[in-house]
């Protein structure tokens, strides 16, 4: 994996998915399902703790055509941002 992409601050989030404590493959599958609930151009925020998501989420975005905006570290978890295509 290349360097970690940091998301810009103050993104306007349409929906937040709590995937904390979940392990592979649940965070990605939940993300896949949750993105169906927002409109094109809106942003989904995923809260996760699985280090695997750092690779899975951007990889899936590239495959599915969504824009991966990056991540931001929080207290004990990571926020991932995906913009729906």
């Amino acid at each position, binding site marked *: 994996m290349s360097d970690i992409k940091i998301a810009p601050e103050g993104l306007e989030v349409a929906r937040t998915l709590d995937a*904390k*404590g979940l*392990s592979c*493959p649940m965070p990605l*599958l939940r993300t896949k399902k949750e993105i169906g609930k927002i409109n094109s151009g809106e942003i989904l925020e995923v809260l996760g703790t699985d*280090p*695997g998501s*750092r690779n899975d989420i951007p*990889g899936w975005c590239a495959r599915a055509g969504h824009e991966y905006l990056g991540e931001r570290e929080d207290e*004990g978890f990571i926020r991932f941002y995906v913009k729906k295509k």
Partner: protein
Amino acid sequence: MKDTVRRFFKILCQTEWNATVSGIIVALLSILIMAWWRPWGAVGAIRNWGEWILYGAGLFDKPSDFLISSGSVIGIGFLAGAFISACLGNDFSFKFPPPWEWVKAIIAGILMGIGSAFAGGCNVGGMYNAIGNLAANGFTMWLGLIIGVVLGLKYIYWEMEHVTWGTTGGKNLDFPYGLKIVVGIIAFAVLVWGAYNYAGMSDNYAASLSGILLISAGLGYTMQRGRWCMVQAFREPHMTGDCTLAKSVALSILILAVGCAVLKYAVPMRGSAIAVQAALADAVDELDPDEIQDEDLADAVEEVIDASETAVAAAERVLDPVNYVRGTFGWGGVLGGFLFGLGAMFAGGCGSGTLWRVGEGQMKLWMVVPFFGISNALMTKLFKSMHMEGTGATHVGSKLGMHLYLPDALGYGGTILLVVLAMAAWYIIVDWNEDSNKLIVEM
């Protein structure tokens, strides 16, 4: 200079390793551990720990010492390696899943324990190292794993629609990165100290555990750093279409099989220990050490004879081609692979993937291990009492399938060709599927 060192640390301990490179390193270490002593597996350790739990509950006789059983030492080394990698790479934290995931962990452990009893090993000993050991049963488990994983994926899709209880509310207990680095370094020191301790033991068996511990740690480190997960290799082509890990596992199995063929072919062909013993037996045929007058000479002759016998026993034990071939080439392997694959989907990790995730603090997988161990220990005991896998090293009369060492049927050349063709077919199919998405199971 400082920047160069920092870059080096980053690439060694922090970045996620490329899947292909990880697969090659895993194959290399798997060949090395076999050359050192024996192939590695995950279920041997997990079963031993399960037997200890059952012993603690008063249900089992005392199992072998977990610091002496080679299977268990492999597991300990593997966990230590994964833990060190997770600490140095800042991946370690106690990750507590939501309640429903705990329930899934219990179901997963039970399924994986039963599956690996039917298949004669988990994804490592029953599939990866089995194909590597040129054992036909590796292929039946491989087939079963694909079916189990696809069905497991369908279940998970169903679950996401229908299970609402306990699916959120996971917690994470993290520690400062500096502390993790210190703990990682301490763990590494303890590991090395442990290896030196084993190496210093007078018993040959125990002394050999030094290499087992270190090579297993290398495997755990590599697999955590590369997040190299075999269940993902089976699942991802059907979930997202991504075939990176599937290709990497196919390549890794191919390298492993070639390496094992080299080791296993070379021993009967050259068999230096066996040749030495035969020559020695000829030489001392007329000679009875008891009748030699010179005491020193008599002692020396006796020692040489003993040493040659030890060498032969060791050579036969380590690289006897039939070792690690199980009597599960048949329905046992397929059913075992299926149950194991299903369980691995519930768990989110296979045998090895479960262990390295334990090393990075995933509490769900901590829950999987005891149930996996207990169910496998119970099944193994039951199967033994029923002679399910037949008797003797060649599993005569196995009810689970055939005991087939592939070179006995196809020769070494034919066997390697078969492995090449099977892995190439797998590679081509998942690659084609990545573009066409034909094999994806839709949500």
